[in-house]
């Protein structure tokens, strides 16, 4: 609790994400399972935050609720001043389209499309003309270092390359917030490092907020802020500042 007030006081800007007293209760047969049991925190613009915890701690649930994929049982989620827990599914889709980028553990590229088309896909949901969106997609693919794989189909690329495409797809819509659910879960350690650094660099350059869920404390160490969750409750929130040079 103390950390929240501290961070809000430190920066004049209001927090981009504010989570208040969040509960998620699943009913398993007769008994209730508390996936989230009263979670409070806030995040500022431009922060790289890691949600860390063992499996079953409720970290994925938290992420899904912030992205509007799941409804909370109780509590508030305020993103950029909007209560998303009150939105209808239709409004949530619009909200995601306008504000959110998403990076999946299993990449989830569309197998029928090549790299550029995959990256351009979320832009097409916004009704952006083909020419502009392909141009933008190429730009972001270059940014993640995939100039040579632009026209490769999803299954013609390695896991690391696919995840880079996934990152480009999340970034191309210029979202305020990027959610990443175990983005490096399927990658080897070398690639993992590269991908994480890439993510951090881009987010910093573009002043975007990145929230990453992981079970790995080492990976969480790349983040500016670590929220540790155990059994649906926040155990502790750590903050640390990284200089770009130190990881290079």
């Amino acid at each position, binding site marked *: 609790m103390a950390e929240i007030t501290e961070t809000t006081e430190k920066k004049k800007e209001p927090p981009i994400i504010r989570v208040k007293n969040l509960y998620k209760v699943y009913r398993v047969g007769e008994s209730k399972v508390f996936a989230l049991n009263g979670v409070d925190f806030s995040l500022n613009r431009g922060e790289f935050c890691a949600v860390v915890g063992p499996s079953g701690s409720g970290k994925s649930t938290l992420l899904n609720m912030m992205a509007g994929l799941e409804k909370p049982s109780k509590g508030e989620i305020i993103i950029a001043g909007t209560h998303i827990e009150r939105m209808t599914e239709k409004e949530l889709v619009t909200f995601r389209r306008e504000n959110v980028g998403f990076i999946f553990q299993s990449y989830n590229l569309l197998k029928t499309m090549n790299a550029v088309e995959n990256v351009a896909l979320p832009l097409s949901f916004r*009704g952006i003309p083909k020419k502009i969106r392909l141009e933008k997609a190429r730009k972001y693919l270059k940014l993640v270092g995939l100039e040579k794989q632009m026209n490769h189909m999803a299954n013609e690329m390695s896991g690391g390359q696919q995840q880079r495409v996934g990152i480009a797809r999340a970034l191309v819509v210029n979202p305020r917030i990027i959610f990443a659910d175990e983005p490096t879960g399927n990658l080897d350690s070398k690639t993992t490092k590269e991908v994480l650094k890439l993510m951090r660099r881009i987010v910093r350059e573009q002043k975007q907020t990145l929230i990453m869920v992981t079970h790995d404390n080492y990976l969480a160490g790349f983040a500016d802020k670590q929220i540790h969750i155990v059994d649906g409750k926040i155990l502790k929130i750590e903050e640390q500042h990284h200089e770009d040079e130190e990881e290079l």
Partner: protein
Amino acid sequence: MRFLDLLVMSVNNLRRRKLRTALTVLGVIVGTASIVVMMSLGIGMSEMQMEILESYGSMTAINVYSDAYYQQDGSSDPNYMTDDVIEQFRRLGHVTGVSPLLNYSVMMRQGQYTASYVNLIGVTRDYMEQISVGEGTYPKMDGSEVELLFGNMVIQNFSNGKRGGSYYETGELPDVDLMGQPIFVVYDMDAYYQSMNGGTNADGTSVKPPKKYLVPVAGIVEGGPTDYNMYSWDVYTDLEALKTQLRKVFKKNPIPGQPTNKKGKPYNYFIYSSAVVYVDEIDNVKDVQTVISDMGFQASSNSEWMEQSKKQSQITQMVLGGIGAVSLFVAAIGIANTMMMSIYERTKEIGVMKVLGCDMGNIRNMFLMESGFIGLMGGMVGLILSYSLSYVMNHLPAVSQVMGMMGTEGNISRIPLWLAGMALVFAIVVGMVAGFFPAVRAMKLSPLAAIRNE
């Protein structure tokens, strides 16, 4: 999402599973073709029936007869059909034209050839306009002079007075040139025969052979000397001219065929046995007919037959169309099945799209477009198939033989443009309806469940 992007995505999804798409489309092809071909048969049959009916006479004409012409009971003047009555008919609503038919038997001669009891009919312009003239033109209709329009089969009536032998015995057409050589008409046939048989009438006074009149021939009804139509057997002329001519021939004497009053004296006006009333539209024929019946005349028209045959052909068409519809229904089930399969396969993809912010409506429309496309493709190929099947049916020798026996000709299978258009629209609609529930299902998939699906 832009419509074009949506379209491209739908088409790409269909192209992904070519065999499955092709099989589903095949179902629609068979369904569309069966409906179209079945209905084309129904339409062909009913149109043929109409054509037969139309050859019997115009569909909008009412034939009016007067009973009173024959039954002359003593009391008051019978309900004759006179020029006044004809005027009343003309003033009825929806009536576009009226013509009394003044039937009068005459004898015609050209050289050695004679035709007796030729039915000369005086008609008005309204009636004359219905006849299509082959050779020559229409007679003058200004009442000044009798000009003749010969029925195309009347020539068969002429026989050679000296050699004998009519067309019916010899099978040879008489050597009569209706248009080129002069035609003489004998109006007073009674007097002619009396003068032939001894030359006295009932009073014992001698009868002079009646005058022959040279009458110009304006034209001949369309058709060869053996092609029947309803104008084939009569000779037509202007009503007013014929009236004037008859008055001139008979002076004060009764005109044969015209009724007389109680004292046996002729009326000083003409009385018609029948008339034809033309109505603007088929739908109004029945009403006008009722009014005329109420005026005390007998009225009949082809529309009665037509209504019956219309009902019959409607039932035929419905039965045939129904048979075809069953196969399109089966095709619709095929489409629904394909779409469901496709959704199960693409559950994850749909989920990803929803997470990435694809509108729910877009997802639904994408699936609707896919199923609509299946319908469109099936409908188009089905139409091509229908047209070729129809062509084959119309050109099978066996079919035209049967039709020849039925006394009709023309195509048995007819695909009007509206049927083709409707079939196409129907195929698309069926596709979209069949795809609707799968599409809604896809739209409602929870994005979370969809991306969890491994």
